[in-house]
């Protein structure tokens, strides 16, 4: 992820002057500075592509199944998209840092991740019971609580990564400004 962003960053320096002229709210701060800062933070928050290498039981085809299930959970609770992307980030970073996660604990990891994510993002938090009902008694409430603390610990409480939604918003904002400025007839 990091390399990709750096690549983006290179191509975006070209538009620097453009952003600088248009954006009235941050006159002093250029795009490249903003990007450089964000990229610096990505290093602590992103996962590597080969995050499954130190897992014995978890196979690559199981991860999308968990994510599909997390989408359903987020949908049924009417969570924001941001919440879902946060939980994905937690799961992947946890897998990178904790070797040999048991397959029997894989769904527990998913539940705990989205539980943390919804607490970070949503206005009206749900209770542990709501999540417990969702997984149909596979795990106890205590297990979810323990898993939550374990995730927090292994991710060093770094629970605010830049999600894809953040970058999407960012790029569309630049695109909007570009269109309004350069080519009014498209609108």
């Amino acid at each position: 992820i990091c390399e990709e962003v750096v690549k983006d960053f290179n191509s975006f320096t070209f538009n620097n002057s453009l952003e600088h002229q248009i954006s009235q709210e941050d006159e002093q701060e250029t795009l490249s500075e903003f990007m450089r800062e964000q990229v610096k933070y990505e290093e602590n928050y992103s996962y590597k592509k080969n995050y499954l290498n130190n897992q014995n039981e978890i196979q690559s085809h199981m991860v999308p199944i968990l994510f599909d299930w997390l989408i359903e959970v987020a949908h049924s609770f009417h969570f924001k998209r941001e919440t879902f992307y946060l939980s994905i980030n937690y799961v992947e970073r946890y897998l990178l840092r904790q070797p040999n996660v048991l397959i029997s604990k894989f769904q527990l990891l998913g539940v705990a991740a989205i539980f943390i994510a919804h607490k970070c993002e949503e206005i009206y938090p749900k209770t542990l019971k709501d999540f417990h009902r969702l997984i149909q008694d596979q795990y106890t409430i205590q297990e979810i609580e323990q898993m939550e603390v374990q995730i927090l610990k292994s991710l060093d409480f770094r629970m605010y990564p830049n999600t894809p939604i953040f970058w999407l918003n960012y790029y569309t904002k630049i695109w909007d400004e570009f269109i309004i400025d350069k080519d009014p007839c498209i609108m």
Partner: protein
Amino acid sequence: MSQIPLSKYHLLTKIGQGLYGDVYKANILGTDQYVAVKKIRIYDVSVGVPITALRETSLLQRIQHQNVVKILEVEKIHGQIRVVMEYLKLDLQQYLNENKDRLSVELLKKFMHDILSGVGACHRLNCIHRDIQPKNILIQDDGTLKIGDFGSARVFQKFPQFFTSDVCDLWYRAPELLLGSNYYTIAIDMWAIGCVFAELILKQPLFQGENEIHQVKLIIPNVQSFQTVNLNDPNLQIQFNGIITNKLQNLINQDGLDLILKLLKLDPEQRISCSQSLQHSFFR
């Protein structure tokens, strides 16, 4: 409870009460270094780790800046979570209570510069503090100000989003919040900074409302109905500028007054940002 052998820290005295637990002064065992330890009270077992604690620690992990309070460690002892932060003796409110003299212009500049760069660092990382008041601004021994207490902070996207409107201390609450808007931006922090700035000059809070309605009336005196207030009405702004100018006229130079008026714009869209304020001629 204060002598748990597992802990690296020895709790000494209680120095304050946060939103979600008590704050203790503590020293690291075997040394004479002091830290502040926040014991997190778990109100409700059904939500696991309390939300405020979760948000505060993860945001402080992300924002590392010389004008923002540093987080040192999070430890879990006997099911209780403790957040360890650097210890700062004074907060701005205590400082204002103790020093009765007017602050010099140099000191005002330094304080405002510190506050604006601290809050600016949060804003650059898409974090909105939502509870800026003198109590939450701490003073280091060398006079540097640090922003603390991120208990009600949260992340945001660039556009106004739907959040809860019950944030900020009443005296520092921005007009759009008082009028019940759930859509707001980082501009609410800028309003609070403006109020703090005025307080540094006046040595007392700028608007001391008793309740929300009184608070609105202090800002907009002849308000008819709360539903029809139009915050970007230029006449309202002129009238409001008059109130502020009257209060502060002889206490601050022209540049300072201009900065306050720009921070205290009724319309959130017109309020200036942290990076713009740092460029203001007041700091030259």
